[in-house]
């Protein structure tokens, strides 16, 4: 059960399939690029056999639990662990003093203590951890720890946090990043000027699987960690640093991941369970409760955004001014990159010749914020689309026409000065979505009670329900930006027609495992593709975030397969005495190109399976995207690799008296480069749209003076099947993206960005209210 390369732990007596049944292919077709190939992990998932990180078990395993601060800001006078140690079955109790290596961790900046030391900076910050024979024993031990806190007044308003005279919450200060973008003639004024201040609440990723993992110490002072994460190698680096071990002794293995959406990009329990396992010499498992999960990961940044748009009388934008304040909470996480994205994409995919923008990411005593699907672009899209509608009203122009008039296209410059060289079909996306025929919808008065706002509550009076329609457009970068050395590694091994590919890419539900097989089949002409387990025994794949894995790890797998293909063809060419260039793989057979062209000569026609009996071909490749560069002091530079655009048109019914909203229908168009798996893409579009709808009408972590009021699925609501309308895909715009494997753009994030502002625009349309804040609450409408 220890050491590198061991089998994954299982629940005792039950065989759990972690990865894949390599033989599952759609009944028709060849399982290649472009087909709706089935997920290789689908069968174990529908049977309940798929091993999520919370399902793991090891002989002699202990259970871990975490003590968290009940205060958002306090000084720790003392910690008395004796009560915990007195409970039979308790095997370890650890605090800050027990961290042998680096005492702080963090994805971009190591500023978060592994356990709080001297002070706590947010409600729920870990203070101590326990390992015990039974999880209930561990929980009782946590309660028996006595911490003497001197309660301090939390700083929860980001404006106050950065005001002169406010004491630093952390030695690194209260400002994570100040980001300026200034370009063009900033003294210019428009004929028409519209201004607004907008707010976005704190959203939770709420993946269905809570944080969990299993750490197993080996006999040599090292450790194996099975973990649900988005980025194995980033976790490995942070865990090894805090354990004071070389990275080679800290081996991470991807366990089944129950959704992610950004919540698993930072470390949560990784370091804690490894410390407990090394301290006890026994395997330790930890599974967060739902309540704990709300405290245990970062969230979407709440934002307050001021905008002033200037336009000519005929509707051309001439300047945008803005000030965007993002509340990063107590620790840095990815605040710096989130702010850069938010600011870079803050004006939308519109031609804007002059900008004067200031973005601030600020430290407070609120929950730490970081990555969530859309990563900064979600917040500013809510602002810029509200502004576009306001501008259209001020100008007396149709809002769709205004967007078309200002739409960017390939060759245009971003506000960062970067020229967009790839596909940017903004006009097609706007037109196809806005002009899509409206589906036939029952009028509110003809709808059953369950289909009215309030649903099962049966509260609505149909006569008082008003319908509204709204539209929004959004965009975002794909992959990491600002000069980050972004790459992915993959290997391919081919023997007798069976290909084995390996990548550390975290499958979090998005379907990379399916695409990896499709790519391999497409390049090598094989049927059987085995996916080796994702772990740190191969080089990094980077994070499953930023809509990047299809491009980055898909690209790495394609490269490795192409190298193997070349080796295979060279081998066959030598065997037949023909030039490699004359050989091709068509329909799973290696054939001569010249024969197809009717020329004479030796004709090769052999199946890939039989082409080289017993001969293995292998390759490991790294895939890097085109280099990016840091932004200068005015926010200028070629910081991004690629961009994707999406639009939504939403129809809502609003009960004006009770302030309840039902989203009746939502139509979308999206810029996807090329569709690699239609069914999986649809899953991204529908799922991403649902999270945007959640942010529009129901999802918000509520904090009062830094204390979380709703850390449960009873009080933090996410859309159910009754809240979620059918998603009508008007068009998937396929303009192949240069430099992207198979021309495909990442599709994970763009569906989430424009759905929120489209729904809120529809509510404005129904109510006539300004609604500058999302999520829209009943009292925003009814009071």
């Amino acid at each position, binding site marked *: 059960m220890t050491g590198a390369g061991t089998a994954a732990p299982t*629940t*005792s*007596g*039950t*065989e*759990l399939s972690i990865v894949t049944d390599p033989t599952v292919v759609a009944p028709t077709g060849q399982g290649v690029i472009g087909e*709706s190939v*089935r*997920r290789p*992990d*689908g*069968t174990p*998932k*529908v*049977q*309940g*056999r*798929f*091993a*999520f990180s*919370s*399902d793991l078990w090891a002989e002699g395993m202990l259970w871990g639990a975490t003590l968290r601060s009940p205060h958002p800001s306090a000084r720790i006078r003392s910690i008395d662990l004796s009560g915990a140690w007195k409970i039979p079955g308790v095997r370890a109790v650890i605090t800050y003093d027990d961290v042998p290596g680096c005492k702080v961790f963090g994805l971009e900046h190591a500023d978060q203590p592994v356990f709080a030391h001297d002070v706590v900076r947010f409600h729920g910050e870990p203070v101590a951890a326990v390992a015990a024979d039974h999880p*209930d024993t561990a929980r009782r031990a946590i309660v028996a720890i006595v911490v003497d806190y001197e309660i301090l007044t939390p700083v929860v308003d980001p404006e106050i946090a950065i005001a002169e005279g406010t004491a630093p919450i952390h030695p690194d200060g209260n400002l994570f990043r100040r980001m300026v973008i200034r370009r063009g003639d900033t003294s210019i004024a428009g004929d028409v000027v519209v201004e607004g201040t907008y707010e976005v609440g704190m959203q939770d990723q*709420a*993946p*269905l*699987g*809570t944080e969990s993992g299993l750490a197993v110490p080996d006999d040599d002072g090292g450790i194996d960690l099975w973990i649900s994460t988005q980025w194995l190698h980033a976790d490995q680096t942070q865990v090894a640093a805090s354990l004071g071990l070389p990275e080679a002794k800290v081996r991470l293995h991807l366990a089944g*991941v*129950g*959704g*992610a*959406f950004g919540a698993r990009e930072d470390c949560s329990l990784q370091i804690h369970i490894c410390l407990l396992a090394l301290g006890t010499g026994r395997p330790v498992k930890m599974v967060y409760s*739902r309540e704990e999960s709300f405290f245990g990961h970062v969230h979407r940044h709440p934002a307050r955004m001021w905008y002033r748009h200037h336009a000519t009388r005929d509707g051309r934008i001439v300047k945008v001014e803005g000030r965007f304040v993002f509340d990063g909470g107590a620790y840095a996480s990815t605040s710096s990159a989130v702010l850069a994205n938010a600011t870079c994409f803050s004006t939308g995919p519109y031609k804007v010749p002059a900008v004067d923008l200031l973005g601030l990411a600020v430290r407070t005593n609120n929950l730490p914020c970081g990555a969530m699907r859309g990563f900064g672009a979600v917040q500013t899209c809510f602002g810029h689309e509200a502004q576009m509608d306001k501008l259209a009203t001020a100008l007396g122009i149709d809002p769709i026409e205004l967007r078309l008039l200002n739409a960017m296209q390939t060759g245009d410059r971003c506000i960062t000065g970067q020229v967009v060289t790839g596909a940017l079909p903004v006009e097609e996306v706007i037109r196809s979505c806005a002009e899509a025929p409206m589906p036939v919808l029952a009028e509110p008065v003809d709808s*059953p009670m369950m*289909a009215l706002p309030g649903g*099962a509550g049966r509260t609505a009076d149909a006569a008082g329900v008003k319908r509204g329609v709204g539209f929004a457009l959004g965009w975002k970068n794909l992959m990491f930006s600002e000069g980050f050395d972004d790459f992915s590694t993959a290997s391919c091994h081919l023997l007798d027609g069976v290909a084995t590919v390996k990548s550390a890419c975290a499958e*979090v*539900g*998005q379907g990379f495992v399916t695409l990896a097989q499709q790519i391999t089949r497409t390049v090598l002409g094989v049927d059987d593709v085995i996916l080796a387990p994702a772990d740190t025994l191969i080089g990094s794949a980077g994070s499953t975030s930023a809509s990047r894995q299809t491009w980055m790890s898909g690209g790495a797998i394609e490269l490795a397969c192409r190298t193997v293909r070349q080796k295979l063809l060279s081998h066959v060419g030598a065997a037949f005495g023909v030039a490699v260039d004359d050989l091709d793989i068509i329909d799973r057979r290696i054939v001569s190109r010249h024969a197809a062209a009717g020329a004479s000569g030796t004709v090769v026609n052999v199946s890939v399976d039989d082409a080289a009996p017993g001969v293995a071909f292998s390759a490991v490749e790294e895939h890097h995207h085109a280099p990016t560069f840091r932004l200068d002091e005015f926010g200028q530079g070629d910081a991004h690799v690629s961009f994707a655009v999406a639009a939504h048109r939403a129809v809502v019914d609003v009960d004006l008296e009770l302030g309840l909203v039902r989203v009746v229908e939502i139509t979308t168009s999206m810029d996807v480069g090329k569709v690699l798996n239609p*069914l*999986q893409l*649809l*899953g991204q579009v*529908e*799922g*991403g749209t*649902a*999270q945007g709808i959640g942010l529009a009408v129901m999802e918000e972590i509520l904090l009062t003076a830094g204390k979380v009021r709703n850390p*449960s*699925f*009873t009080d933090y609501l*996410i*859309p*159910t*099947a*009754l809240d*979620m309308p*059918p*998603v009508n895909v008007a068009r998937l715009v396929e303009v192949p993206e240069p430099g992207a494997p198979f021309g495909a753009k990442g599709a994970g994030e763009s569906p989430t960005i424009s759905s929120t502002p489209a729904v809120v625009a529809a509510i404005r349309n129904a109510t006539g209210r300004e609604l500058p804040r999302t999520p829209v609450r009943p009292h925003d409408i009814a009071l």
Partner: protein
Amino acid sequence: MSASYSLRVNGRDREVSDGWLGESLLWVLRERLDLPGAKNACEQGECGSCSVLIDGSLVCACLVLAASAVDRDIVTVEGIAGAVDGSDAVLSDVQEAFLAEGAVQCGFCTPGLIMAVHDLLDRVPLPTDLEVREAISGNLCRCTGYGRIMEAVWTAVRSRQVGREA
């Protein structure tokens, strides 16, 4: 307070030896009986991930005391296609429909939804759109937006119709 008792799960008697009587059915299934198919996403009856059938009724296993389910027929996702522990290669029509329609992403909600859809279609063979949505509204899914899950339900409805007509 601990006791030993027997539960009838997926047609088989399973011994729980020396189990604390406060343990939930979800805990006992997952940690004592090696049936991890029922999932633990909220453990307060909000998400439906732990749905199982007890005497034919759909319940959240997290809200049921295991010891109170003695002498009842318990069916978990591992047994919904007729097998004891899910190891059988046979899939139920609903499981097959979930695969065919792309209703599975991360898969954490999937076992609970499979149980909820079986429960619905066994009671209501030809449900309306709203009946389906209401029936699965106790099962939270964060990945799919429910579109492919709805399609899977319609596919299962059609396959049962064909089965009845044949």
